[in-house]
């Protein structure tokens, strides 16, 4: 089946898969959004425990999706994996550190009173809740604004000089953190805007999930109130990023395969690719409709709309980065080193093998949805937690 596909079609297929996983990852990062809520919403230990358990039941799904997102990129676009992870060392290390401390915090929070103590683990949860969406948003924005790296595959045949054999090299000693102050076309502004937008988006998702799943009226009321501030905040940051990127002096791949830069190139690419435009638009419209339902109609139904919109919007952004005629990981230091799905992918054979493995994804999705629904059969409150065997 997949053997009949051209190399380019396989590369496109894998970028679509990566985009889908990316969309699901951001949706599942509602766990991170939830981890920033308990200092704001909970007025006592019981309420805090309810909120932590609500999101704690799902943390492993988000964590696993992040690992699979990384694994899928490694298998399908290894040059991105080696260039970005080895280059933007500090950004990825900070993100990983935030996930390391998150993984133990749920399980250890109530059990470890002596070594690090409950408050430390709660701090870790908040830290992960802020850092992960913020930095992942900033990292995705650099898919449009660019990063300072060079790639030279021939470096492998150089022998004997210092570090000369390294293929991918980063241009600054800040290793990715420079995205926060990159002044190339005010890139830093758009990078930070997307980071903050993702942070607000997952927080909004978490608030709607609280409204949907928690039985405690006081918590639900406070969540609704909080929503009135975080929805406008998201809109401001996201629309700022969108406007900035649409008119950015971005990167494109010419007919001769050379990378060039042009103003508003991303807007043009989007108009030239109606399928991507429609996916992105549907995603954004669903997100906006979710907010409308949340603020003006039945808040408990808004979660589904916002969730679906998040998956599609993020997917649309990633498709926009990879499939509309731009390098998906541009280099602002050496344009010709920019990564496209064509020059950074695995071989045709590996993509075929991995494509067969991807047929498992619908089964995985099916049992994950079943598990999610099973765990969400009943709303959660303190009384419900008292009947549970395993409480965080």
């Amino acid at each position, binding site marked *: 089946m997949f053997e009949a596909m051209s190399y380019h079609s396989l590369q496109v297929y894998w970028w679509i898969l990566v985009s889908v996983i990316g969309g699901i990852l951001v949706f599942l990062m509602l766990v991170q959004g939830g981890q920033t809520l308990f200092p704001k919403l909970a007025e006592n230990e019981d309420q805090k425990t309810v909120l932590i358990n609500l999101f704690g039941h799902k943390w492993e799904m988000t964590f696993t999706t992040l690992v699979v997102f990384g694994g899928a990129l490694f298998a399908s676009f290894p040059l991105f994996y080696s260039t970005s992870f080895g280059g933007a060392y*500090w950004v990825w290390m900070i993100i990983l550190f935030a996930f390391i401390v998150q993984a133990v915090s749920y399980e250890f929070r109530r059990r470890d009173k002596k070594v690090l103590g409950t408050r430390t683990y709660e701090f870790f949860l908040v830290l992960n809740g802020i850092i992960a969406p913020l930095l992942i948003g900033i990292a995705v924005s650099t898919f449009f604004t660019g990063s300072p790296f060079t790639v030279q595959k021939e470096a492998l045949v150089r022998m004997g000089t210092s570090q000369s054999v*390294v293929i991918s090299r980063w241009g600054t000693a800040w290793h990715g953190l420079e995205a926060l102050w990159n002044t190339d076309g005010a890139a830093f502004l758009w990078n930070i805007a997307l980071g903050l937008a993702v942070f607000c988006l997952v927080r909004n998702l978490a608030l709607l999930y609280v409204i949907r799943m928690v039985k405690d009226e006081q918590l639900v009321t406070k969540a609704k109130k909080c929503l009135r501030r975080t929805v406008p905040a998201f809109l401001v940051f996201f629309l700022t990023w969108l406007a900035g990127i649409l008119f950015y002096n971005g990167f494109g791949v010419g007919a001769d395969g050379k990378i060039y830069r042009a103003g508003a190139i991303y807007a043009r690419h989007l108009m030239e690719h109606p399928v991507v435009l429609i996916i992105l638009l549907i995603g954004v419209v669903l997100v906006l409709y979710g907010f409308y339902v949340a603020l003006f109609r039945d808040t408990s139904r808004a979660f589904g709309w916002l969730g679906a919109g998040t998956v599609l919007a993020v997917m649309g952004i990633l498709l926009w980065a990879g499939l509309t005629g731009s390098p998906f990981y541009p280099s602002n230091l050496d344009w010709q080193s920019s990564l496209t799905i064509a020059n950074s992918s695995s071989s045709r054979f590996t993509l075929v093998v991995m494509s067969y493995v991807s047929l498992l994804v619908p089964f995985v999705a099916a049992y994950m949805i079943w598990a999610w629904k099973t765990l969400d059969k009943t709303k959660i409150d303190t009384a419900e937690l008292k009947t549970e065997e395993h409480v965080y």
Partner: protein
Amino acid sequence: MNATHWATVDWSRAQFALTALYHWIFVPLTLGLSFILAIMETIYYKTGDEKWLRIEKFWMKLFGINFAIGVATGIILEFEFGTNWSNYSWFVGDIFGAPLAIEGIMAFFLESTFVAIMFFGWNKVSRKVHLWATWLTAIGTNLSALWILVANGWMQNPVGMHFNPDTMRNEMLSFANVLFNPVSVNKFVHTVFSAYTFSALFVVAVSAWYLLKKRHREQAKYSILVASAFGLLSIIGTIVTGDGSAKQVARYQPMKLAAMEGLQRGSRGAPLIAIGTPNVRKGGLLKSMADDLKGKDQLDVHIKGFEIPYGLSILAFNDPHAFVPGVKDLVYGNDKEGIPSYKERIRSGKIAINALAAYKKAKKAGNNDEAAKQLELFKAHFKDFGYGYFDENHPEALVPPVTISFFSFHTMVILGTWFLILFVWLYYALFKRKLETNKTLLRLAVISFPLGFIAQELGWVVAEAGRQPWVIQDLMPAQVAVSHIESSGVIITFFLFFVVFTALLIAEIKIMTGAIRKGFDH
């Protein structure tokens, strides 16, 4: 390569070793305990006896504490291939990335989804569905071990691929060859059996402690019954597959075998040193090991001890008269046995690298005849490609740490033998109904858990230190695999991980011991 570059290489090695060794403190327990839980829940499901449910829930609580920290320490390993070994990620990402992605899709999702049902689903799904969830969690955790060990086995014995000079990387030719790589298959079975042994030791040690304290006697005895049966089968499997591992090391990584045995000069009918000690060089044993890590004096290690005649030849090749090469045979060559010296292989590797460079140049200039000629030359010498990055005047740089490999291997084997004796003894005492009165055996069972931990870690030291300097056997040494990052950055992250992981380990030990003290009924 200058000193700055070597600092990055060595700190990246140290960071990977640190994170892998910490990760492996927790993972074996998860691998085996998940099956022990599934067996206990199956007995409960079949008999309806609530006693088994109480026993299972106690061990599940300990499993949960351990599982979280295993996940925490695991995420960094996957991403370190990119962050610290970026050249490696491109050079072999086309092959190595696939098992990692499959691990995520096939195993991690299964594990993470059903572990949530296992912990939180008691009141939400039927007993049958819960039992399924527990089994699927165990299968998921073990499938993840399969895929990561397929990846690791491939690094030790790269098969099913070819080098594409146009993309400057290795590309997969046969997924079946990668998956069924004999080194990977044996490594997987050996590793999971040893992990099951470790988990059984954990259950046995905790239960023996209860018996010594005269607490939870019934639950403890039933736990030992399940764990010692599981442990006995597992240690037998570990020993059998360990023999298989030795044969594969002899075939694919002869230098590693020479280091494991501290064999300087090879011979036909080579003896096996059952118990022995290397000559401790000036400054004591620790100094010798430190020198080992620095790559000093490894051609000067001699082992003295009790020898089993023909043992090594039989262990390695099933033939008492087979030739087993020693460190010096491999470094300096042995014409009689047809073993080329490292100097020759370094020269051959340099020919491969230069031919590749010439091929690229000719291709760029449109000189196809010259490109084809250089490509043929490259292919003829590709098997020695990685050797080309070494200096032919210093072939000893290709020798792994001998003292560390020898001690790690022999201590692991001695401990493995002890675990076999322990499980047989426990089973015998259990059936003779003398377990509770045999305080010596119970005490030995308790102290065997930390010994099991030592054996686990040493297994990885043998596997990974013994194959240095290769990241991919014969094709890519560590100094070529590393990322373009400053050593200061790696030093910071090394100590950051060290502090965080150590704090979490202390917290885990406190929580575990607290939960054990509270007992089954809490």
